[in-house]
């Protein structure tokens, strides 16, 4: 297991905390009515996006799900343009056309959140094919949930990637539920990764709340993909802290003690403890300063969003087709 440098560890911590603070703010502002439609919170699962993306280069590509903010931030998206998109402003990533479920930044290889469960998996597999055709060692990563693993496009894509040895990593964020339905009722086998053998590829299960473990597993999978040896299924066991969406009165029938137990496994707290246990790698002051800087950046993004204009109504007619 490769051990990331203290700098990289601190950077991963910063990203995880940025995700958490962003999500807290997005939930608040959704409830306040400044953000519309639907917001799915990534809180609790930060280590997956961050651990994986820390193993990637900027030119590598990822695709996300309906629960997409974390992947954007981990891949390096601009908080201002993210928040402006949530606020429905013309300065947002999608000029206000996409909202939470459709943030993308093709510049940094973030091919978009997606409102259709498993809908992004084939698309990012196409990025993997593009990478193979180019032959420059780029890799592509699909993030998807336990629920998505039961959908046809997952199977079709992984099979093709395996048969063609595409430079792909299929990262299953197994947070044990799809909305209200426990994964245990949708899969006869607890591990999504156990399907990998049937495709002749490696399937790896890691503690998805341990960012270092995620990073190590992702690093190995990326190396394999870059070497032309084909895809890996990387399953990260994790948990979402909040209800499926931020909709008020969203039912959540998960046992309270289950939720509490998972909060004990907080991926951020764990990394903080790990860094602090290692003499001199993160003082409490440094950690407070990091958080304050993050909060300030989030505050800035909200200010940016609020200062940005709404798109003109007529712009609804633009971008249907590229000219």
């Amino acid at each position: 297991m490769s051990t990331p440098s203290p700098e990289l560890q601190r950077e991963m911590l910063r990203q995880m905390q940025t995700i958490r603070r962003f999500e807290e703010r997005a939930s608040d502002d959704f409830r306040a009515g400044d953000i519309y439609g639907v917001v799915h919170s990534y809180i609790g699962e930060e280590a997956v996006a961050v651990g994986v993306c820390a193993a990637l280069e900027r030119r590598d590509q990822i695709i996300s799900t309906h629960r997409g903010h974390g992947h954007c931030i981990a891949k390096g998206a601009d908080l201002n343009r993210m928040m402006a998109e949530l606020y429905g402003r013309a300065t947002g990533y999608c000029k206000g056309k996409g909202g939470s479920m459709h943030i993308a930044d093709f510049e940094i290889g973030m091919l978009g959140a997606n409102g259709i469960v498993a809908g992004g998996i084939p698309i990012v597999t196409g990025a993997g094919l593009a990478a193979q055709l180019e032959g420059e060692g780029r890799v592509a990563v699909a993030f998807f949930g336990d629920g998505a693993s039961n959908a046809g496009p997952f199977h079709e894509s992984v099979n093709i990637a395996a048969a063609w040895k595409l430079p792909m990593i299929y990262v299953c964020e197994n947070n044990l539920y799809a909305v209200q339905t426990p994964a245990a009722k949708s899969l006869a086998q607890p591990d999504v990764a156990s399907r990998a053998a049937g495709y002749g590829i490696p399937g790896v299960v890691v503690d998805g709340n341990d960012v270092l473990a995620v990073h190590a597993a992702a690093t190995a999978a990326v190396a394999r993909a870059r070497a032309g040896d084909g895809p890996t299924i990387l399953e990260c066991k994790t948990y979402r802290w909040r209800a499926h969406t931020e909709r008020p009165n969203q039912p959540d029938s998960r046992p309270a003690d289950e939720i509490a137990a998972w909060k004990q496994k907080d991926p951020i707290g764990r990394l903080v403890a790990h860094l602090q246990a290692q003499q001199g790698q993160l003082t409490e002051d440094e950690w407070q300063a990091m958080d304050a800087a993050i909060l300030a950046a989030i505050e800035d993004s909200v200010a940016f969003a609020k200062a940005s204009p709404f798109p003109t109504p007529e712009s609804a007619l633009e971008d249907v087709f590229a000219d």
Partner: protein
Amino acid sequence: MREITYEQAGTEAILEEMRRDPRTFHLATDAPPPLLAEFGPQRVRATPIAESALTGIAVGAAGSGFRPIVNWSQVTFAFVAMDQIVNQAAKIHYMFGGQVTFPMVFRAQVGGGTRRAAQHSQSPYSMFMNVAGLKILLPSTPADLKGLLKTAVRDDNPVISFESGRLGGLVGPVPDGDHTIPLGKADVKRAGTDVTIVAFAWLVHEALAAAEALAAEGISAEVVDPRTLVPFDVDAVRASVRKTGHLLVADEAGPTAGASAEVAALVTEDPETFAALRAPVRRVCALQVPIPYSPGLEDHVFPDRRKIADGVRAMLSGARAA
């Protein structure tokens, strides 16, 4: 009469029909609590996210003597199941020469206004109209939804119930008892003499509001709600247009090859109705674009009472001018 919401009306219909016929069962990616509480997890199944399989499962169970009820939730999730709808459910009775029947009901929310952007906001019912072998509901009131849905469960064919997301909370009177409505009967939601407004689902209410505004200007609009797209009550629509000489079709979907186009064609291809038409048919539809997220954008895209009323005014002034 008892007043309940559109959403409650849908649930009531399913509850009553599941009580009535033990061969019914329910499939969806979530198990709705009232159904689960009453019928248990055997008949009320929370499925994996696999709409293609669960739609096909309905087809096979229907052919094996059951009467499945499937809730796709948003219509957008039905696209992954399109082969099972178009190539299997719709055609299977016909291509097997009518050997057995395939009774099944699919429910799906349509429409916009929820700020959920392009994928979660669509009204693609005309795509399903184009496929022979599917019956299609598009109810606008709690009473219509309940009555049509109950009829659908008893129908021996695949029936898709498209339900307007905007109307979920709409409260309206629903008759007591075993309230059913035959498929293929339009409902004149408001009588009038100057112009026929054919409107679907949410836009029925917008059309009624427009009619109210127009009445104040001395324009008498008739609002016809087809209620089902297949079978389609072409006689009722044509009769109304023959009376008024004017037709405006209001649809939350885009116009291109939409239900609105079909209504226009059905009216203008009938010699008698065509002869009675005193102005061009007018479609007041969503703009032909994916649905955007930001509120001002989304509102700009959809038709509403104002656009309907403006359309009627323009049509009647044009007609007078001509």
